[in-house]
């Protein structure tokens, strides 16, 4: 029986294992050093906030794995020998495979800041990071202030976490406005204000110079690059993005760049070795996507796709229309299609922006100003239907059609106020003034 070994029990690896089991009787082993069972990484924050316990973040009950004959091996992989098709494990064991899938996800970026390895300095990615945070910031007496470095999705989640335990937070963001490399300016500024409304000390255009140690090798304060200001703190969260977690592969014959290099079939340069999820790097980006996509949904899609290939139906990874979502404190965000920030958008991309006067809801619709084609939408504080936008993108609808049919896409709970009429009239007024 062919033995499929998957390194990593995140959403990519587990989706793959489930789909292989549906399609075949192959022997499947998932190796992970992080946790006994699959859990939802995106839910770690809710454990610290007390919304859930760790077991609630596990999407399958513990009997699921045995019932589906998916073997779980708790160990870190130290080395891969592709010649003998063997994994060398950190606990000294070996594991041989017929086909190997690398799905090891990401690790937090560290940019060589002085003091970045001190006690009390952590990322917020792995289960162990959460356990660390619980040690260093159990409450606002043990942690009088926390400094978060890096204004992305994980940074704002960490700020929300600490806020839930009344730990004062200083939030250092390199950019001039929160996440404005990705978000258009209007949206980014709503989030700036929302962060401040939560009494989080947001510092824009601010870089970290160094992290200062106390006499015990624990963080004492940080120093800001621009002003030289020293901010005393007990915890420093490093959330300046993530990169593929592939250090243990570097010594093998598997080709790596920033991630494990794969072709459209998710195959590496070595036969019978594949990579999926955050750690995979496409030789060439697919469409507007990045070569490395560190997103829950793309990990899942790669898992769904590779299962076919491994079970004899070799197919390419051809993701459909881009979508994503997040939550910034109390404001939900969804995106369908492509909406680029001012920094990265092409000349033809034009935006229509509408903002509700309560400053917690807005949408940005991107369209091609030459052809009027609808390109994508960002929506804040209003839920929209994935299915409808996916359909409109496939049908290549124009901006007028989308604006006039926006109500069909609304996904807010019943009895919520509707804003489509106001949005449409704003849209029509703007067109007249142009």
């Amino acid at each position, binding site marked *: 029986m062919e033995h499929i070994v998957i390194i990593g029990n995140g959403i990519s690896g587990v989706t793959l294992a489930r789909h292989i089991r549906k399609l075949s009787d192959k022997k499947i082993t998932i190796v992970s050093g992080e946790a006994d069972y699959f859990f939802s990484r995106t839910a770690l924050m809710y454990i610290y906030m007390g919304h*859930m316990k760790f077991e609630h973040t596990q999407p399958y009950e513990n009997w699921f794995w045995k019932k589906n004959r998916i073997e779980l091996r708790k160990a870190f992989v130290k080395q891969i020998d592709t010649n003998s098709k063997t994994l060398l494990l950190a606990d000294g064991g070996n594991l041989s495979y017929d086909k190997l899938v690398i799905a090891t996800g990401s690790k937090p970026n560290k940019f060589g800041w002085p003091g970045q390895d001190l006690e009390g300095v952590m990322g917020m990615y792995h289960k162990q990071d959460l356990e660390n945070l619980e040690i260093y910031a159990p409450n606002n007496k043990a942690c009088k202030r926390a400094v978060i470095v890096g204004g992305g999705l994980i940074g704002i989640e960490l700020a929300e976490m600490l806020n839930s335990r009344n730990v004062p937070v200083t939030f250092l963001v390199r950019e001039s406005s929160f996440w404005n490399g990705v978000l258009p300016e209007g949206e980014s500024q709503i989030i700036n204000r929302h962060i401040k409304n939560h009494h989080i000390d947001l510092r824009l255009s601010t870089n970290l110079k160094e992290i200062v140690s106390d006499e015990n090798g624990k963080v004492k304060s940080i120093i800001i690059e621009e002003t030289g200001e020293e901010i005393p703190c007990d915890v420093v969260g490093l959330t300046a993005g993530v990169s593929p977690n592939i250090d243990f592969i570097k010594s093998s014959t598997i080709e790596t760049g920033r991630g494990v290099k794969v072709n459209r079939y998710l195959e590496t340069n070595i036969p019978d070795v594949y990579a999926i999820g955050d750690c995979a790097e496409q030789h060439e980006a697919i469409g507007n996507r990045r070569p490395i996509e560190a997103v829950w949904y793309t990990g899942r899609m790669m898992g769904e796709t590779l299962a076919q290939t491994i079970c004899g139906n070799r197919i390419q990874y051809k993701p459909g229309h881009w979508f994503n979502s997040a939550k910034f404190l109390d404001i939900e965000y969804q995106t369908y299609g492509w909406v680029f920030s001012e920094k990265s958008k092409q000349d033809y991309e034009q935006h229509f922006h509408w903002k509700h006067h309560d400053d917690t809801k807005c949408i940005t619709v991107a369209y091609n100003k030459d052809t009027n084609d609808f390109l994508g939408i960002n929506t804040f504080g209003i839920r929209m239907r994935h299915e409808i936008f996916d359909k409109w993108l496939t049908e290549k609808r124009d901006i007028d059609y989308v604006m006039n049919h926006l109500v069909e896409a609304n996904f807010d709970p019943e009895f919520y106020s509707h804003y489509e009429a106001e949005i449409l009239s704003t849209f029509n007024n703007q067109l007249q003034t142009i």
Partner: protein
Amino acid sequence: MSLAKPDAVDISNKQKVALAIGIIGLFILTLALFNTNFPNKGVFLTCALGLISVGTIIYSRDAYLTKLEGIKNDGVWFKSISSRGVWGWVVGVILTAFYIVLYFYPKYLGLGVDGVVNTGLISLFDPLSQLLSGRQASQWFVYGTLYTIAILAFGYKFILKYRHNRYQQIRTISVMFFQLGFAFLIPEFMYVMNNDLPYYDLKSMWPLNYYIFDEWSVNGFLSNGNIGLALILFGLITIFVISPILTYKFGKRWYCSWVCGCGGLAETAGDSFRQLSSKKMSAWKLERWLIHTVLVFSVVMTTAMVYTYLGYDSNDFWLTRGVFIALVIGFLTLVFAGVLFFKGKELGKDVKYGAIGFFVVIALLVIMHLTGTTKHVFYIKAGALRSIYGIYIGSIFSGVIGTGFYPILGNRSWCRFGCPMAAILGFQQRLFSKFRITTNGGQCISCGNCSNSCEMGIDVRHYAQKGENIVRSSCVGCGICAAVCPRGVLKLENDSMKGRINPTEVLLGNDVDLMDLVNQK
């Protein structure tokens, strides 16, 4: 993981004051319970209920209005009371003890029987009862008053907690209205107008008010002329006509989380315990057996009760025992055959369980008809059957376990495991209803907030992460799963029956060819 109770979730000083105010109110009630004879009962009763309400209101305002609108679940699993900690058990034991005394030993609450005046706690409520209906209070009046206060005060808290969510607010106002008006005030006023009428909570329908077709009840109605006849007809129409139509259009939520008193208490006072319901597959299996067993029991018991007071001779009254049994069997057969014909394929192997249930009921009814006498069914006294149901299901299951165990089993264990009404509505919701919880394409991140907050113990995430709509008989449509979802994945909707149940293997957003290949199977 070392998640001891972080002290950051301590309550504010204002909340401590509010708690103290509420506890003083409770203390007055406790003093009354231990036979303190207050001089001016009206004043002390007003104080007690007022302080409890005011305490809850101040506490809630400080908890929610001092923060921005949004999901307020911080520390739920750290707080002792809402995570089966010491306070959870203490409250559970107190509530359970209260229910046992209430149902089985009301004299300890001070109930005066056979014209004797009340003492203790019940006497404290005499002034209010006199004011409303001109009679002295009973243990049920005390219970009804406290129940209503709980729904109103905690309903207010719930409205503040979800002040960004109009679905939650309207739904809560609805249960507050139905409790105050239909369950509490209207029956009192009906008594004032016509004191021979049996207590009738208009919104409570068979089989939840399992006693409505009992002999004393039916006689009570019938001896009151047109108004009584109208009420008993209304009782029949609610369960056989109104309820199926509303459930078809809106799902069982129209009743369970908008109207029902049990649901009302669960959604308001019980809200803090919703995360405690078990989401395990094993709990679901237990649920399906238990709730349907109770349903079978209630159908057979009610039929038996009606059967015993019907006659043999059609000259006396057209509805004889034979006709009645034939009608019941005919109706059940019609329902069973209809379901088998229209939905047999969809139900798969559950058809087998349905068939077992159906034939058990039919067999029981036939045996009853063949062996039953005027006094006895199944060789035991008919009244005994009714008492068994009343004690074990009506009192112990719905009251003692259902509410007393809120802090242990979650706030809907009666609705989930025991309520025969919920079973009927759920059966219909699963098969013939426009209601579903729509899953938004591929947006689920499997975080588990939805499952965690489901009071009915549905593993919502199991469906959401597959991109599949949630169509479950137990769903009461409270909408909290949709509210707490951080990615906007869930929406309660009434839409067409077609495509309502949509299992998928590959989710929206991936390769369209792959979706076609895998999902078409």
